[in-house]
């Protein structure tokens, strides 16, 4: 058994933030402990009002070696960007 605490990824929602953003990672014994550590490590300067933590091993990530097949096909599909539609002014900020 490893003597190291497991690694946790930390997500913080800021004062005016709409969503939680990944801010970094830390070590902690369990989830509760990870929230406290996140509070102490990542919100010291009034950065956040909500914290999520997830154990790093629970994250399934795409493989960097599959970059080509995964992302290249989207590169020349400019028509997928909604830039060809005029947006009326009175719609306001989208």
């Amino acid at each position, binding site marked *: 058994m490893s003597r190291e*605490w497991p690694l946790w990824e930390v997500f913080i929602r800021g004062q005016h933030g709409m969503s939680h953003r990944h801010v970094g990672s*830390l*070590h*902690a*014994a369990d989830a*509760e*402990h990870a929230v*406290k*550590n996140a*509070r*102490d*490590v990542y919100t*010291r300067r009034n950065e956040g009002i909500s914290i999520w933590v997830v154990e790093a091993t629970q994250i399934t990530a795409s493989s960097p070696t599959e970059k080509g097949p995964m992302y290249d096909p989207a590169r020349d599909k400019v028509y997928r960007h909604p830039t060809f539609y005029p947006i009326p002014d009175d719609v306001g900020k989208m």
Partner: protein
Amino acid sequence: MDALFEFLLRQGDNALVLGHRMSEWCGVAPALEEDIALANTALDLIGQTQLWLAYAAEVEGKDRSANDLAFRREVYDFKNLLMLEVPNEDFGRTLLRQFFFDAFQVPWLDALKASSDQRVADIAEKSHKEALYHLDRSAETVIALGDGTEHSNQKMQAALAYLWPYSGEMFVDDDTDHAMQAAAVAPLPSTMHAAWQKTVSATLSEAILTVPTDPFAHKGGRTGFRHTEHLGHMLATMQNLQRAYPDATW
């Protein structure tokens, strides 16, 4: 000595001495995350110190500042609890001491929010929130270490045996306390004992630690009558800069 001044010194010195002890972990704590957490706690306590001692200096009215009170008083002028000045020894004992103090501060500061003295109430209002988090954290760590490995349990039990005789000093009322109660500035410290006992019993039992039964209690710190030999060493470090370079600015 003016009772209010004495009372404010006690509040400020408790926060200052414990804050300094906690700061001694900066850079050497067992994990980076704990290092930062302990430094945060230390900074909260030093922040509380500034508020208490600034008000103490005003009440004294002898043109001294919070800094003068912190860095230019001698051992016997300090009014902190003895428990707070003894060395950290190890991480477990440091956190157990913090827990004992937090378990007192939470009901104490909560009560001070209703103080007849508005400045005291304001300082308590701000500090109470910090104390609630400190207690949450220290209690959790005490449980994790007590109910950890056989080795960590033994170390915590040893820490408990060492610190327990110092815990009684928190609840001894004296003339200053009675004067503060009469002026509705603060309740008697002894009235905090039931709440403290409740928090401590619940946490220690969850931490599988056996509470000592010896009623002996060290005292003398908060009256300034008798400090341990450790405070002088601590102040020598803490006050060195102001002693060597009086009024240094940067």
